């Protein structure tokens, strides 16, 4: 099964009476989530706000988000897939042995109660974070959760949504999708998009040393990626565009300071439910916008002669 049954955060605000956060810590990482969309807001079909909603938190440790939860389920590390699969089996009425459930850190009774709450919701949401998608199992964990959300629609309305990380990371995915058909890990070197995570994704390219230059826009891989990938960025000509000096700026050959989007530069940001929001700058900046810098680099590169040998280059293709 593939795909994602989802909705907008506006629908969550107006309709959701069961909120599940799985492998995420919104109290610290998305501090406005509870108050803007999921818990305390009064919605059209949840007029009493927090009183009309139930929140369940699933995580491997008791984070500050647990204080806001009605029910906290502490799963053993790397056992999320087993818990999700067991929930799917319970919902389908299959037999489960209590001893096989014990390794997850939860009891069969806890999971049966959880499954019952999921089925009885009027409108349920499964929000999932990096605690699910970046641990052992990775995309298979996400797929199991998305399948659970889809299967719950046999009983009630249920949706799922990833808790996206840094500002506008959703925008990167969405724009790549509507321009190339793929969300990330896209190779355009042949003049058309090819998608292959593990081969064309950034960390893999850097680790293998496949690329001989890098342009980093609004990201700080020098503080987030594995050390061998960082070491490769330091070896090759790396150019960073960022409003601030970052760890990546320190290892780059060139750092270009740009205006901060949303503060001193206009633009569009995508919310985690993929709704585009226009940004109007409140202040002026002496620095150019990212868009200005990229456009000027593009224009300068376009003036250079084609690097491919005559007869094999882009110009020849265009002439045909």
């Amino acid at each position, binding site marked *: 099964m593939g795909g994602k049954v989802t909705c907008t955060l506006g629908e969550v605000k107006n309709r959701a009476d069961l909120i599940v956060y799985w492998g995420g810590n919104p109290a*610290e990482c998305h501090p406005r989530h509870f108050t803007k969309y999921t818990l305390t807001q009064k919605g059209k079909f949840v007029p009493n706000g927090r009183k009309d909603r139930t929140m369940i938190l699933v995580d*491997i440790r008791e984070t500050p988000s647990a204080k806001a939860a009605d029910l906290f389920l502490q799963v053993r590390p790397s056992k999320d897939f087993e818990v999700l699969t067991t929930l799917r089996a319970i919902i389908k009425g299959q037999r489960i042995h209590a001893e096989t459930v014990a390794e997850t850190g939860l009891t069969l009774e806890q999971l049966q109660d959880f499954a019952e709450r999921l089925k009885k919701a009027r409108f349920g949401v499964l929000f999932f974070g990096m605690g699910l998608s970046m641990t052992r199992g*990775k995309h298979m964990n996400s797929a199991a959760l998305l399948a659970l959300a889809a299967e719950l629609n046999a009983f009630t309305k249920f949706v799922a949504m990833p808790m996206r990380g840094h500002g506008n990371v959703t925008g990167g995915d969405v724009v790549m999708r509507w321009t190339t058909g793929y969300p990330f890990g896209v190779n355009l070197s042949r003049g058309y998009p090819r998608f292959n995570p593990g081969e064309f994704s950034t960390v893999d390219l850097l680790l293998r040393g496949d690329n001989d230059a890098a342009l980093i826009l609004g990201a700080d891989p*020098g503080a987030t990626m594995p050390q061998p990938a960082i070491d490769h960025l330091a070896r090759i000509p790396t150019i960073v565009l960022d409003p601030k000096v970052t760890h990546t700026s320190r290892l780059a050959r060139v750092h270009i300071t740009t205006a901060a989007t949303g503060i001193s530069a206009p633009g569009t940001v995508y919310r985690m439910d993929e709704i585009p929001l226009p940004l109007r700058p409140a202040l002026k900046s002496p620095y150019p916008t990212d868009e200005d810098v990229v456009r000027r680099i593009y224009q300068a590169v376009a003036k250079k002669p084609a690097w491919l040998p005559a007869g094999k280059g882009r110009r020849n293709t265009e002439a045909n």
Partner: protein
Amino acid sequence: MASKRFIMNAGRTSKQGQQINVGKDHAEYQGIVSTLTMHPDDMKALNISPGAAVCVRSEYGEAVFQCKEGKVPAGMVFVPYGPPTCRLMGGGTEGTGMPTSKNWEVEIEPITSESK
């Protein structure tokens, strides 16, 4: 000095998020990403006092952190992402494009004046 194996859970904190807007060069940010939270019983077992330095080794590298007591399950430690966690992270993505960013197996050893 004895060492012990732990599950290292890296993540983000709100203090870290606030500090990013001040600047990653500040000592406060460096302090946040170099502080490891451990269960009090584990600290006693390893004879680590609050604020003491520990050496964390993974399959891929090692880094030094300051240790503090906190609300984590026994056998697990929590650290905010940053340059020290980059040194512990493996590069393999298993075809997904993303390295495993949480739940690494690590070995933690207190740093004493002898080991310095």
